[in-house]
């Protein structure tokens, strides 16, 4: 269990998101509040039946064997990915994780089960924003430019394919990704049209941002707007949270990380939306902090760490953590990513870069390419007004919009699982 997961469970206990559960309807996902859906995901009684265990093996890729990895990242030793294979010849699907997520994040595990059950070999990749990827597999070591990230992912996919080489019989290739991994999947698919290494049969974008910049702006603001006084006032916010948790603790007399406990807490505490928003913002900020610090160290510092500094394994990183969590993805975009890209592409404006980091930018390709589909939720919190209409208009029949689920909250719901399975099965011969 990652610490983030632990925190999110802990926070779920605190927030008392009694998301107005609603009665059965056409789509019987139970949580109508999109923020609650995003945090709670699919309650166990609504989850699809998925395999309990998977025959997973990990492969470790050394993409840039000559790269010098700073001492502070002494524990980094290549990019791990996971492979789950069928016993016989089968199609292989690549899954790209969302922002900051590793190949084995909880949502990844759900998707792995879905596709393994559907008869695919499953190869899971950490997000290019995950520190393992930044350090070991990103050429620029500064993720965020979708075309560069797609190139990095493509290289990793080729190397992974080589690494599993003879041991596995692959009939065809498929591709998917959720959230940031969804929009990256679209760019990878387009790159593959040129390079033709895989010739993906079908590609599904799961809850992708339409404009990356817009989505990260929304997520950055969730934190800034919902912790009164901002992060410098975090202690006050956390104290209040802990006080609430302590009350529950006192009342119930015990504390445990379990669904049952969370359920009991839900029943006691009224719905508190700002709290949920802060949690989502916090979780996103932690992901981007990890990415920004890793990128800065790998590029020699200057953004949030001093240049030419000798940071050893016993150096305190707390001051940098404090700065990193006060640095939004949008700050990184304006102060770090854009200036670096402009050095490479003189004349590139911020507006141009923002436009490039979107599905609009490859709208023509998406419109014309039958094999690409998109799956989204009408109430997804990372979208802007008009995004859903644009997706429907661009993808036509290849867009499936669920009414509820927030951001990736319904991935384990049976109807959603069926849709994903059917989408890819239609590609098989």
């Amino acid at each position, binding site marked *: *269990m*990652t*610490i*983030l997961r*632990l*925190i999110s469970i*802990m926070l779920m206990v605190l927030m008392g998101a009694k998301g107005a559960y609603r009665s059965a309807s056409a789509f019987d996902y139970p949580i109508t509040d999109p923020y609650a859906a995003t945090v709670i995901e699919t309650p166990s009684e609504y989850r699809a039946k998925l395999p309990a265990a998977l025959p997973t093996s990990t492969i470790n890729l050394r993409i840039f064997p000559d790269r010098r990895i700073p001492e*502070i990242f002494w*524990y980094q030793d290549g990019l791990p990915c996971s492979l789950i294979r069928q016993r016989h010849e089968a199609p292989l699907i690549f899954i790209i994780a969302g922002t900051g*997520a*590793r190949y084995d994040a909880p949502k990844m595990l759900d998707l792995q089960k879905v596709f393994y059950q559907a008869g695919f070999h499953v190869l899971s990749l*950490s997000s290019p924003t995950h*520190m*393992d990827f930044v350090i070991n597999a990103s050429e620029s070591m500064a993720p965020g430019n979708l075309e560069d990230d797609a190139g990095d992912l493509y290289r990793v996919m080729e190397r992974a394919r080589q690494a599993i080489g003879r041991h596995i019989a692959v009939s065809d290739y498929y591709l998917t990704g959720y959230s940031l991994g969804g929009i990256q999947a679209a760019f990878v698919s387009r790159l593959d049209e040129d390079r033709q290494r895989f010739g993906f049969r079908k590609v599904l974008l799961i809850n992708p941002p339409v404009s990356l910049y817009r989505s990260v702006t929304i997520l950055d603001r969730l934190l800034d707007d919902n912790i009164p006084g901002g992060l*410098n*006032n*975090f*202690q006050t916010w*956390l104290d209040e949270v*802990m006080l609430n948790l*302590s009350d529950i*603790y006192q009342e*119930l*007399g*015990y*504390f445990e990380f379990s669904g049952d406990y969370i359920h009991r807490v839900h029943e006691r505490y009224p719905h508190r939306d700002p709290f949920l928003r802060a949690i989502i913002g916090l979780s996103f900020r932690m992901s981007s*902090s*990890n990415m920004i*610090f*890793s990128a*800065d*160290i790998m590029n020699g*510092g*200057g*953004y*949030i*760490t*001093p*240049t*030419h*500094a*000798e*940071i*050893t*394994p*016993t*150096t*305190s*990183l*707390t001051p*940098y*953590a*404090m*700065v*990193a*969590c*006060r*640095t939004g993805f949008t*700050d990184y975009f304006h*102060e770090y990513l854009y200036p670096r890209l402009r050095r490479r592409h003189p004349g590139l404006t911020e507006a141009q870069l923002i436009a490039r980091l979107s599905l609009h930018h490859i709208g023509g390709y998406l419109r014309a390419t039958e094999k690409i589909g998109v799956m989204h939720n009408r109430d997804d919190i990372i979208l802007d007004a008009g995004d859903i209409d644009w997706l429907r208009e661009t993808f036509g029949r290849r867009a499936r919009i669920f009414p509820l689920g927030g951001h990736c909250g319904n991935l384990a719901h049976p109807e959603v699982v069926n849709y994903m399975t059917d989408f890819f099965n239609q590609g098989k011969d």
Partner: protein
Amino acid sequence: MARKTATSLLFFLLLSIHLGGCSTLPRTTEQSRPPLRSYDALVDDRQHPLEVYDPLEGFNRGVYRFNHYFDRYLFLPVVRTYDFLLPDYLEDRISGFVDNVFEFNNLLNNLLQLKWKGAGITLSRLIINSTIGIGGLWDPATGWGLQRRTEDFGQTLGFYGIGNGPYLVLPLLGPSNLRDSFGIAGDAAGFAGIGPVAWVDNSTASQAFTSVSSVDRRHRQPFRYYQTGSPFEYEMVRLLYTQKRALEISK
């Protein structure tokens, strides 16, 4: 056993004070340029939860790393062998047995904090699970609404107003602080002096129990070092530990 734990703890504390002086600031050279976004510009002088009092940080980070190696090359291989050899069902029975034996500490600390209800529940649990639950292999008491009332000596010290003291990463035992380190020693002393170890009075059995319970506890703890995907894992663990203990003490 108690004296040994206390002695090694004292030794460790002295050692940490000695080594704690190692610098935790990065060495910079004349070429160094300060970062665009700096601590001084972004952080005010209020209290920040991430900045836990940790004067021995350099040393703690060293121990944290040592614990990783210990975990990876010794502890986890043993735990994996245990997982491989025993069926889950048997593992769960062992967990039940271990928990039941440690109810002694829960009872003692509930009493020390004058928590009569908690003590009553713990005593009932101990009796029910030891008899009907056959030595704790099963836990019928929880099913009857008697939830475990966990209390340790660190919590007892906290209950009487003793603060955290400096954060410490203990060799093999992991995150702690000065108060909770004394708590661990106190619990070990009680357990050995007036608890199950004294009752059984058989050093082989006690040692066997110590080994089994350590493996059982590690087996139930899913945390793995350096797998969180965060370069700030040390800070995260420190924050979570500190908040978790505050919560446990305040209840």
